[in-house]
């Protein structure tokens, strides 16, 4: 877990914590877009996405279709890898370490152990230290984020509620994580032991967060971002970048909306630019009100 490995001139070392976490550092300030085929991946790359998430169905369609959502077809992932030069991520089910092994063998750049797919294990997440490919995981609060990091996640995204086009849960989860970090900052050393117990997270990680005032890995926001202003909102709330799922390719003019969200993510603190980016984007995805979603259909409740 150390982020300061010693220098080893003779033997280049792959899959280190620094290489995995450092990869996410390169994505900061950027937008990662869900795509279901090579054509969408190219649209995303042309719009300025820093990475694409290859999946068979965007979350809005997973909601609509129901059934078990699984890892995507390797052929489809390989086509997307072949189509773009930006990093390609792909999703495995929670706890489905064999899907993760398959994704690693395909050469994806990041694995998302994702609550958007149907969990394969209701007790255990995958041991992410066992992989060379880095993982990103979702979290609704600080304890969940730190448990994922303890399991080897090299990047965290606040979960939000994927496939709704409603940013309310993304805001809730990011605020929750940021507030809990701010609270830790005020604790003295005696209190950190009890805090670790309350958070159900390793003491060393809790202490590290209290000292840094941030997670030891990059924190993005996900789940419900549909407009340039949504993306800028998440950035102003402290997200280091955003994932946009259904919001782009379920809208009227995906190429234009994708480019607009990229602009607003970079100039998140400049309302004039966000206003310009928001003009004439056509239909946004329809969206779902989260308070009418039954508990069983809330993806954020998956993972623990």
């Amino acid at each position: 877990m150390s982020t300061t490995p010693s220098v080893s001139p003779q033997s280049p070392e792959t899959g280190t914590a620094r290489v995995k976490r450092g990869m996410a550092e390169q994505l900061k300030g950027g937008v990662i877009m869900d795509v279901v085929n090579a054509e969408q991946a190219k649209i995303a790359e042309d719009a300025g996405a820093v990475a694409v998430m290859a999946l068979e169905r965007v979350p809005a369609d997973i909601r609509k279709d129901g059934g078990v959502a699984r890892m995507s077809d390797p052929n489809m992932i390989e086509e997307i890898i072949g189509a773009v030069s930006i990093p390609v991520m792909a999703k495995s089910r929670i706890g489905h370490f064999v899907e993760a092994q398959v994704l690693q063998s395909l050469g994806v750049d990041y694995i998302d152990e994702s609550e958007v797919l149907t969990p394969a294990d209701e007790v255990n997440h995958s041991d992410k230290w066992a992989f060379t490919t880095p993982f990103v995981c979702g979290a609704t609060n600080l304890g969940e984020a730190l448990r994922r990091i303890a399991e080897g996640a090299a990047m965290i995204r606040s979960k939000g509620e994927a496939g709704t086009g409603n940013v309310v849960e993304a805001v809730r989860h990011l605020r929750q994580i940021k507030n809990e970090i701010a609270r830790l900052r005020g604790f003295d050393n005696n209190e950190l032991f009890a805090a670790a117990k309350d958070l159900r997270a390793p003491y060393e990680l809790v202490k590290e967060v209290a000292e840094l005032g941030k997670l030891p890995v990059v924190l993005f926001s996900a789940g419900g971002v549909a407009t340039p202003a949504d993306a800028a909102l998440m950035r102003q709330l402290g997200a280091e970048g955003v994932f946009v799922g259904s919001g782009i390719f379920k809208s009227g003019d995906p190429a234009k909306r994708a480019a607009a969200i990229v602009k607003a993510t970079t100039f998140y603190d400049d309302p004039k630019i966000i206003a310009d980016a928001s003009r004439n984007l056509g239909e946004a995805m329809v969206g779902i009100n989260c308070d009418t979603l039954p508990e069983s259909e809330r993806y954020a409740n998956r993972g623990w």
Partner: protein
Amino acid sequence: MNPSPVIGVLALQGDVREHLIALAAADAVARPVRRPEELAEIDGLVIPGGESTTISKLADLFGMAEPLRERIAAGLPVYGTCAGLIMLAEKILDPRSGQETFGGIDMIVRRNAFGRQNESFEAGVTVAGIDDGPVEGVFIRAPWVESVGAEVEILAEHEGHVVAVRQGRALATSFHPELTGDHRIHALFVDMVRAAR
């Protein structure tokens, strides 16, 4: 002694924060730069790691590309890491359509030359002009320098591939010193900026 030089970090996308911290540790006044008018206030510029296609696109969109090209050509000291190295090249061997660089170093570069993320690695790198042993090289989907012009000084190689170069006031590395606690390369760049003032 002169006041500390002001060094900007191009903050369109990428690991800006880490460069700001490394520059501050090397006794520069560091600040993010996103707008053309902010270029007037800096003595030097770092182009961080990130996605070179994204940085190139955003620089074009927001009118940064042309002013930057002019300032660099006029002698603004610049340091690029990884995507930043790509942006300083005169030519990319395998560019995405429409991907334009800022130039500054007479070299041809190959993107993601060391492979995808699973091939990303750490290794010690001996850099000419950096004393006290190799620097910690963190290579992430890293490019390498395919060929250089006569004016370019090769500072480091890894397994036969050029990974650090300097031409006049422009410096570039394939790897990311900003992700380590070792600020010797940033200190070298700060010295270059001081010398240029």
